[in-house]
């Protein structure tokens, strides 16, 4: 549905009128390119150029503050990264955060979406207030959660009647727990917003028909509502999974990547920004880019399988 609506304006574009009547297809194509060309050029400039540059730099041992020792080392940087347990640990951390937060966010987000969809009074107010955390800058929310859990400045220990000296940021699981919590708190609204869009697309008559046929609430949910929301769920999962995989701010602020909480983007930051070791850092950023592609591809594949199954019904 979405794709047809985006196509229509192109056909009706004012430029189309300027070309002579009975326009051959190719002229329209050319015009399309003319119109889209500048945008494509800009996009290539801002995305392809840095990527190619990173690819090129990743072949060097090159430190910005030691420019005399620049040296072509071929693909050995990739070897170093891929054989380093730190990298795989980082990937593991990111995948863990991704799986946990996306799963929890989907469940809570769906609850929120139901509430927003069904509420009758103060609709706008409820929707707006659910969205508040999403409006907060990630760095700010990371600090808020960090301070809340600090033994000195925080209130969490007191509220939960924990030992006042409890410091969750002392070890890996404690840190990752708070990091996930902060992520969930902050981005669940986004998920619920996407799910709300999906929910409003569920045909009412289908639900009514199911009710008339005697389907329980659970059956209605799994057989009618969720299948018709598939597109929305996929968008939510894809966006959030990629975002969660590239997580940076929360671990950076809360632990400074201590206790083994560094995700891949943290390692890239350490190499590129902190150590100005451009070769190794570029190699990692290329690998990070590739792993994001793999995840995106994998998720799309996964959902497409679902899609065909549903169609087969």
């Amino acid at each position: 549905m979405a794709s047809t609506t985006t196509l229509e304006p192109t056909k009706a574009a004012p430029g189309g009128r300027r070309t002579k009547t009975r326009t051959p297809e190719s002229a329209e194509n050319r015009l399309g390119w003319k119109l889209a060309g500048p945008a494509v050029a800009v996009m290539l400039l801002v995305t392809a150029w840095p990527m190619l540059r990173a690819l090129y730099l990743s072949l060097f041992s090159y430190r910005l503050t030691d420019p005399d020792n620049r040296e072509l080392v071929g693909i050995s940087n990739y070897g170093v990264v891929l054989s380093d347990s730190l990298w795989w640990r980082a990937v593991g951390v990111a995948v863990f955060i991704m799986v946990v937060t996306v799963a929890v966010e989907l469940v809570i987000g769906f609850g929120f979406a139901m509430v927003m969809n069904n509420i009758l009074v103060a609709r706008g107010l409820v929707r707006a207030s659910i969205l508040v955390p999403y409006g907060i800058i990630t760095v700010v929310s990371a600090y808020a959660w960090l301070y809340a859990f600090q033994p000195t400045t925080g209130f969490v220990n007191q509220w939960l009647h924990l030992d006042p000296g409890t410091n969750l940021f002392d070890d890996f699981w404690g840190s990752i727990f708070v990091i996930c919590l902060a992520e969930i708190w902050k981005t669940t609204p986004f998920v619920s917003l996407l799910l709300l869009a999906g929910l409003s697309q569920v045909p009412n008559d289908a639900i009514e028909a199911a009710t008339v046929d005697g389907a329980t609430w659970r059956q209605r949910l799994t057989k009618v509502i969720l299948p018709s929301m598939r597109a929305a769920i996929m968008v939510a999962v894809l966006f959030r999974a990629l975002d969660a995989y590239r997580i940076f701010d929360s671990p950076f602020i809360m632990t400074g990547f201590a206790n083994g909480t560094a995700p891949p983007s943290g390692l890239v930051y350490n190499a590129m920004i902190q150590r100005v070791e451009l070769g190794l850092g570029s190699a990692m950023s290329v690998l990070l880019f590739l792993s994001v592609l793999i995840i995106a591809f994998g998720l799309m594949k996964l959902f497409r399988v679902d899609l065909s199954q549903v169609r087969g019904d």
Partner: protein
Amino acid sequence: MGIRARRRVAAVAAIAGAAAGLAACGGESSGSTPTLNWYINPDVSNLEAYVTDADGNQAPGGQAYLALKCSEESNGAYDIKVRLLPNDASQQREQLVRRLAAEDDSIDLMSLDPAFTAEFANAGFLEPIPEEEQAQLSEGMLDGAIEAATYDDNLIAVPLWSNTQILWFKKSVAEKAGLDMTKPVTWDQIIDAAEQTNTTVSVQAKRYEGYSVWINALISGAGGQILEDPEAGKDAEITVDTPEGKAAAEVVSKLGNSPAAPPALSNADEGGTVASFSAADGGFLVNWTYVYSDPNVAPFKDDLGWVRYPATTEGDESRPPYGGINIGVSSYGKHTDAAYEAAACLTSAESQKTYAQASGNQPARSAVYDDPEMKKAFPMAALWRESIDAAAPRPLTPYWSDISTALYSSWHPPSSVDPDTTPAESQQYIEDVLQGKALL
């Protein structure tokens, strides 16, 4: 038509913009006072020239005051504007490296942590000081301060103030533990004393530069050093896996696993340690000298004691950490000559005295220590000077930030340090990182 008209507008705007840019440049080079941007580390007054107290009285502030003063004294030769760098040393370095690597010409002067001065000089970020000026600028400076501003036998930055850590303690706690604070104490002794009295020993053990400062002081205090030949850059010989390294690891591990460790030990930076020391159960603290002027300790100033940095091992002299700030002149600035003039003014004996009084940071010029006003304001000035003379600076290698990061990563958190394995592991790790064989 619409497109063409818009394009014409854009072109006119571009030309106008370029012209305005040129005009701005022309205006600056034709006689008017050049503006020098000085990137400073946060201190008492940050960007304000004066500190205002609760009653509205104004007193000279930190580096911002020096900037104001020197701009006035220059009679229009230059005008210094201060810009603030982030809080901790690693972040300060990061911002400067990022800008300087891009040859940002908006930096003229910068306040540099001595630990990173060698790296900046090696990268060509610092404008070399003419030889005759080197002699002039370094005259009367403490040897330790000059050493930490020298690379490849050349003075590469001008010391503004020098710093060292001392052991701060609560007299009541030491008394209760029966610790004789008139003699040099060891880490063992203060940890035991804190355990006995249910108090804490606060040190900077967050995963950052300050933790390396501690480790370096511990290893030096046992008579060792982190690396052998700093000028070899990434081929320097790392000497952490030594008996001295083990002695250092024993101290870190003992505190890390002791009830005397404050709850947030593995997350504590300078400010955090002052806070935990000021708490009711605070007992001991190693920290820079500005603690004396810190508002957190004001409520118990009568109970506040200070002695020399604790010894790593019984019988060995302690080697307190060396810190401070050097002023560097950027190679990419537009007014390097004026910048050196400004640096000379900012680091004059007069400026350093004012700065020391305002910030509690020690001068790098020895004459200022003999000033009666200084002696009165800082009763521990003699200890400061003794500590600076005994101090062990962090190795002056262009790769210090790598070495430091690898070091504090492998020793973190303090409770995980094992004297039998950590030194060997961290040595291997540092070597691998330097050779590009391991990630940080």
